[in-house]
């Protein structure tokens, strides 16, 4: 970059630049709206769905396999339950999974990555070694194995995903933490008498926050995707609780004629993952970080 431009840029605050980048990026705003809509639908599900009783074990054989119409906007399934209702309820399970997994995996991964990058030596060797091993494990295979060998249900699926997920955060935060730890201000803080705890939480962590938040947003998409795939393969919530992945698996038996039974829940998953992904991409451009 020319000496001139860098100097001029110094006059712009990082906050202004970030905001500028975010607002110039329509896809980021669309992503944010999509995420908000998914969250609202999930939270308000009992209030807005047309057939609240269809979220459970209800049967409605008169309308089984009904094609989408005015009564059932997205059609009905094999026992006549409204698919729209079940899709909206399905978001609840997906978001629950996201929160459950990321609430454990992100802090755990971040803490390990932070420590590995800052302390170096054996701490670094052990943590990065462990991360590398974990990354070599095909996550879906491992989650299936863990979940199924135990007992196929949502909690076990969550545990299985969490066990593998922290590694990505550890890897990412490690990279950032290592480069920050090499900066002069970290040494200066140590020389000024700061404790390791102070350095980790006050000097290094604030510099990792943007990376962590971008990664977490993108991860929300992948956890939804991953959870849906697990339940598609038969490791999901016990019926009759609506779950998008298992709805697709159920509907698949009636293809190609009853296409709505697959496409509605399938595209619902896609809608949620796309929203989080667009938002995450937008945040990445906004913070100008590499994830």
């Amino acid at each position, binding site marked *: 970059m020319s000496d001139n431009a860098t100097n001029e840029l110094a006059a712009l605050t990082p906050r202004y630049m970030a905001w500028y980048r975010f607002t110039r990026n329509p896809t980021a705003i669309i992503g944010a709206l999509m995420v908000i809509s998914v969250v609202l639908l999930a939270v308000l599900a009992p209030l807005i769905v047309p057939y609240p009783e269809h979220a459970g074990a209800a049967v409605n054989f008169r309308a089984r396999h009904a094609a989408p119409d005015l009564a059932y906007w997205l059609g009905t399934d094999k026992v006549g339950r409204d698919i729209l209702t079940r899709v909206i309820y399905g978001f609840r399970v997906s978001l629950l999974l996201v929160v459950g997994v990321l609430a454990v995996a992100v802090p755990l991964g971040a803490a390990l990555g932070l420590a590995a990058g800052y302390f170096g030596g054996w701490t670094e060797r052990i943590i990065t070694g462990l991360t590398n*091993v974990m990354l070599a494990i095909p*996550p879906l295979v491992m989650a299936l*194995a863990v979940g199924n060998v135990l007992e196929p249900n949502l909690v076990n699926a969550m545990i299985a995903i969490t066990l593998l997920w922290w590694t990505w955060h550890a890897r990412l935060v490690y990279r950032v933490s290592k480069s920050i730890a090499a900066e002069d201000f970290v040494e200066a803080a140590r020389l000024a008498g700061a404790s390791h705890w102070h350095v980790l939480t006050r000097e290094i962590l604030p510099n990792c926050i943007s990376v962590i938040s971008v990664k977490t947003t993108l991860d929300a998409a992948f956890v939804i995707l991953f959870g849906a795939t697990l339940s598609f393969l038969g490791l999901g919530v016990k019926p009759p609780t609506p779950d998008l992945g298992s709805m697709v698996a159920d509907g698949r038996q009636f293809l190609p004629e009853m296409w709505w039974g697959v496409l509605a829940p399938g595209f619902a998953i896609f809608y949620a993952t796309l929203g989080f992904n667009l938002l995450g991409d937008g945040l990445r451009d906004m913070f100008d970080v590499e994830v």
Partner: protein
Amino acid sequence: MQENYLYTFAKRIAGFVGVLLVLSLMIFILARVVPGDPARIALGPSASQEQVDAMRVEMGLDQPLVHQYVAYVSSALKGDLGRSLISGRPVTTEIAALLPATLELVLATVILMAVIAIPLGVITARYRNSWIDNTGRFFSIVGVTMPSFLFAILLQLFAAYFLTDWPIIGRIDHTLSAPTGPTGLLLVDSLLHGRFDVFADAFQRLLFPALALAMSGIGQITRITRSAMIENQRRDHVLTLQSFGVPDRVIVFRYLLKLSSIAPLTIMGLEFASLIGNAFVVELVFSWGGFASYGLNAILQKDLNAVMGVVLLSGLFFIVANIVIDIILLVLDPRLRLKEAR
């Protein structure tokens, strides 16, 4: 210099061996501590307790865990992964029979990924912010975010409604007698035997599963290639060449392409882990009958020996792929070769 780079490489291989050991240990512990007695699973619920106990002795389950693990690893090294609890046949034999199907699918996928994603990444970066870029980015984000089972089903639906003659199930038409050997890959073997009818059918059947499996990788790699290109475009060395009037297309397709393919290749190595997972889904949807389908069945039936074999082999798959990528990177990036020498 030569020695140093062999040394770097040896270190990587040693790391991979460590990965396999830890992986085997993890899956071993998992298989042994879980509720559910392998001997009971093998014999079924109707067997008497005496029969089960006898089976436990036969399977070595009465030995201490450490002993069992050492025995497992040492026989695994000799290629013996134990017997399936369900069929009673050696796991190695069962997997070996199904492996070529999966190998063919994965190879086709990787080729699709490299052939589509890297050029797409380059082109979107070259025409940044134009309609070409926007379309390319749209497709790559769809690839990344769409569940592979949904994409697979969409392809099937598409075929069902619009390409009614297109075969969408299985590897090969059962009325065709497929040639056997030497590679087990239908496309290769049929060509070697001059069976173009088999080749055509196998190719048609391979295309959709490979596309479904490649989708997420294509999206990911396109994005990474694009951002690497854009990042490198800002570098001083681009300015050097521009200052002397080297044409843009040479800068992009020679200088930037090589430099910018390092990052996506590295990511491709990591992507292999999820690629193997997605193969489970895609094989299921397309009734592919490969190693992944076998694994899925084994997991659902709690066939512990088979599960251990499948997990280990998936790890091995990942590792072999990464070794190949390491070699490509060493050829591509002189900095990796020179680092140790300085």
